[in-house]
């Protein structure tokens, strides 16, 4: 079976030729997933930290929901977001269905619970270690959250990129809400699904290899930035 070597050659060929179609879907994949990660982090880092630090009514329920939503099936998320954004749905008037924005919304729904749940655990651990000391130094509980988020920044980067990994690799939700429209909402994963359904296994596999490579590049870039910063600060 030389499918793999064929696909590998194909992948190399696509990359070396700076294939226009490839660049387009790679760019969109990165834009959509990075934006989703950014927005999800803005929501989930404070949310996870608040769940770890502050007691309020219904906290247990929120935590249980988060842990459940960590494993949300993408197709279900896609379907729910579709029904909301559909012209017949509550937000239909915005006309967001089949746009990159819709894909971002779906990915945010998918990864926000993951980032929030991981952040909660990270902040819980940091709080166990630091709470007494910070309190004795005179920190108010309101300033504790910011301090602990900054204190755990290296672990949080890892949490955030767990979210990125899920977002960039996800196909079910973006296919439903994005529609896999050529030159408009086609990303790496939906392109792979499409080529598979066309029976072009070789091209699909080549795209798959490129996707994995892309993930690897982004993740290792972030991790080495993290490592460099870690060396400077600690």
């Amino acid at each position, binding site marked *: 079976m030389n499918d793999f070597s064929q696909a590998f050659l194909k992948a190399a060929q696509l990359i070396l030729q700076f294939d226009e179609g490839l660049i387009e879907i790679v760019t969109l994949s*990165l*834009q*959509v997933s*990075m*934006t989703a990660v*950014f*927005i999800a982090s803005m929501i989930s880092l404070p949310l996870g930290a608040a769940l770890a630090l502050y007691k309020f009514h219904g906290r247990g329920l929120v935590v249980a929901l988060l842990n459940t939503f960590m494993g949300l099936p993408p197709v279900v998320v896609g379907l729910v977001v579709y029904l909301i954004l*559909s*012209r*017949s*749905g509550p937000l*239909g*008037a915005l*006309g967001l*269905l*089949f746009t*990159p*924005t819709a894909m*971002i919304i779906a990915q945010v729904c998918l990864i926000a619970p993951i980032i929030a749940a991981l952040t909660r655990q990270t902040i819980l651990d940091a709080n166990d270690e630091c709470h007494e000391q910070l309190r004795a130094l005179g920190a108010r509980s309101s300033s504790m959250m910011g301090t602990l988020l900054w204190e755990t920044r290296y672990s949080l980067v890892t949490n955030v990129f767990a979210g990125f990994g899920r977002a960039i690799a996800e196909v079910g939700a973006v296919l439903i809400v994005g*529609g*896999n*429209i*050529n030159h*408009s909402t086609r990303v790496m994963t939906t392109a792979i699904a*499409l080529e*598979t*359904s*066309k*029976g*072009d*296994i*070789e091209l699909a596999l080549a795209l798959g290899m490129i996707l994995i490579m892309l993930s690897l590049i982004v993740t290792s870039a*972030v991790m080495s*930035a993290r490592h*460099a*910063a870690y060396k400077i600060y600690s």
Partner: protein
Amino acid sequence: MKYCLVKAIAVMVCMTLTPAPTLANSFITLVSTTSTENSGLLDYLIPKFRDRTGIDVRVVAVGTGRALKLGEMGDADMILVHHRASEENFISNGFGVERREIMYNDFVIAGPPEDPVNIRGEHETIRALTLIYEHKLPFVSRGDDSGTHKKERELWALTGVDVSQYSGNWYYETGAGMGATLNIANGMRAYVLTDRSTWLSFKNRNGLDLLFENDPPLHNQYSIILVNPERHPHIKFEEAELFANWLASSEGQQVIAEFTLNGQQLFFPNAQLQ
């Protein structure tokens, strides 16, 4: 370093949230069957229409069942599908207007090259399917309410065999698109009904042969339907009508006829010229 990363992300965010400048000043959304999209026909057609009118056509490719549902919800301006009964139902329920026949091709039955019951030698679809049933040979069905699936169920109904009671026995329902179903049939060495354009453009078919074709019941008619703007006021009806008219015009019909794959014509125009 940190600020670099923040900046890069901020730029990405801005790029995504500002609407991408499109060359065309407007676009319409077409839901089509996977066969027309996967064959490359629409990729061939649409640039020609865009050059003419400046209107871009964004294609979402799904099965006929879901395409009609998307039209019903108002999530597309028009639909290009291939199952007459469902289409007429869609219109009589007030979801669509102006059903126009555009082109046709046909369905074929593919299967393992050794063809154990020799449907190659048959002349009638009903006879070929009955042979498969009688020998309980594996048959893979779309099972996804698509046009092809509906067609296949109609053909089985003509044989008098109630296949649903054999589901999972020798009749396998994939619930997937045509391409995925062909991949499965290939792996299972099963018989399968497929439209000819998907068959010809499908690349992973070294374990399958075309075994049965050219029978009138296998006719496959494609029509375009405009979504009813009275139900969904945001529908870009005028632009959609422009596209439908163009498809049915002698120019559009000519373009459809021109489109070939490996020298073979995939779709045959048959619109009534206005």
